[in-house]
């Protein structure tokens, strides 16, 4: 631990030209990451202010987890830089101010909840109490249970306890509510909101669009290793500007529907159709003119989920959106 303190001292001597309070909490600067011939991230720049809550959205394989692993110092960028409060996240001392929940992580099955939290707590310089972390993760009645006996949801809450026990300024939450039921998810959101209210910076990835909408001030949409859109949840929705048109009908072909004016996406479940379009009136006029009978017609503004699907679907052109 002497070495980490030494590195921290050196950093303190080198970086203070920029006041600590002005530094972005998290930064990727023209970051590129290749795995062999696969470009997982291609020239991505992200800057997260201190105290900001940002959600990264995108389909599987979009590059979200790769971006997070660069920010955490788990992986080295092929090109560009990753910064945590201006320092290299690959140095252990830089990570004193961060806590994380990661995908595919695990804790030793033979230890108890309390023992694992105690171990993680020992790695930080200004931790909260063990009991405080366990209570915040709502694991009070499981504190002496072995990890092996925990359910998936309880394990997820244990990871949350580990993420917050160091009282970090930045929290990385990679798909944090996977495996939680609705009630537990709501409770988890409440915890995130509280942490944000205390000025913590939060970066989360999620595939629950509702989650990003509920928690984040800013959404970064990633697809195929590049950022395709960035803004407040409302801005993302407006940027797509589309309307979700839903109805039930027989005898329609998806190709014909996609060729209608302003249609960005067509999906169907049996006889139920859903169109995302910027010109709902024209589209409906065409459908009526074709003589097809439709029922259960609904038209409403796109949800964040619709917006993201539209932005990341194969035929969406980033240029057209920007």
């Amino acid at each position, binding site marked *: 631990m002497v070495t980490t303190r030494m590195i921290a001292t050196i950093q303190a001597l080198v970086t203070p030209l920029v006041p600590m309070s002005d530094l972005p909490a998290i930064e990727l600067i023209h970051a590129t990451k290749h795995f062999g011939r696969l470009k997982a991230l291609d020239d991505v720049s992200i800057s997260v202010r201190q105290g900001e809550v940002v959600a990264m959205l995108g389909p599987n394989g979009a590059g979200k987890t790769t971006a997070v692993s660069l920010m955490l110092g788990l992986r080295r960028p092929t090109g560009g830089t990753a910064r945590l409060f201006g320092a290299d996240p690959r140095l252990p001392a830089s990570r004193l101010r961060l806590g994380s929940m*990661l995908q595919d992580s695990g804790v030793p099955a033979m230890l108890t909840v309390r023992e*694992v939290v105690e171990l993680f707590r020992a790695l930080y310089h200004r931790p909260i109490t063990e009991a405080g972390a366990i209570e915040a993760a709502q694991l009070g009645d499981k504190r002496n249970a072995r990890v092996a006996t925990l359910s998936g949801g309880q394990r997820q809450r244990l990871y949350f306890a580990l993420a917050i026990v160091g009282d970090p300024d930045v929290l990385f939450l990679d798909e944090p509510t996977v495996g939680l039921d609705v009630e537990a998810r709501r409770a988890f959101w409440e915890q995130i909101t509280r942490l944000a209210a205390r000025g913590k910076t939060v970066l989360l990835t999620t595939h629950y669009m509702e989650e990003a909408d509920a928690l984040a001030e800013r959404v970064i949409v990633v697809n195929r290793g590049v950022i395709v859109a960035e803004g407040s949840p409302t801005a993302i929705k407006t940027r797509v500007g589309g309307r979700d048109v839903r109805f039930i009908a027989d005898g329609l072909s998806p190709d014909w529907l996609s060729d209608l004016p302003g249609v960005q996406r067509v999906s169907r479940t049996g006889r139920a159709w859903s169109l995302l379009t910027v010109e709902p009136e024209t589209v409906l006029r065409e459908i009526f003119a074709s003589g097809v009978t439709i029922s259960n017609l609904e038209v409403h503004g796109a949800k964040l989920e619709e917006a993201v699907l539209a932005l990341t679907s194969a035929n969406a052109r980033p240029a057209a959106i920007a």
Partner: protein
Amino acid sequence: MSTRPEAASPSALIVSRRTRFPLLILVRAEIRQRMRVPGFVMTTLIFPTMFFAFFGLANVRRTAGGAEIGAFMMASYGAYAVMSVALIAFGVSISAERGLGWNKLLRASPMGPLPYFVAKVLMALAVGFVSLALLFAFATVVGHLHEPVAFWVKLSGLLIIGMIPFVLLGLAIGYLASPTVAAPTANLIGLPLSFASGLFVPIRLLPEGVQRVAPFLPSYHVAELGWTLVGAGDGAGYAGHLAWLAAYSAAFLALALVAYRRDEGKVFD
């Protein structure tokens, strides 16, 4: 938005004192984990004493060629004990933690890679000492083998030094073997080495081919450290055996580093 601390639950807000000796917490967690796995306790703490009870106890008070057989056997079974601890403690636990994603979580924490290994080495040393203490206590109490304290201390020290190459070999196994094959691999390496080095059956009773190979095995030189202490060495002296063990340590360290880099490169590069 940072001015609403009352929104947070009060207990979560208590910033408490930093842990004084984080390494101690790590070592304690390592020991607890191992001690809660029956398979680990059996192979590292029970087997050496049990094998001694089966094969050696009857002859413990006899002498041969000027050396006491009892003390000689303490060196043999002690060598087997430290080897098992080193191979199993590292091989199995590192491999399992790689599969689990625990080291990923630790790598994202403020802990560097070094304390992780230091804690494991200290755990292995502690378990090694306990294993030797059980063996020595059993021989004293049940076998009525009465040796001066200085002998036990010297023998323990020599065997713990002899543990080093096997700690490094265990490290290599931990990074090369998948979680399911790490334990069998460690045993498949440890047991034949022990037999071929004359730890259970004296070398002169082994097949001639094995007798010829034995002086080249690392386990042989660990046992020789103890055998030299009881006056039954092959004449190479401490320096000769330590040189062999140093060479093996260098080779196993290189192997462990290659394996570590390869694995880290896959997951953390």
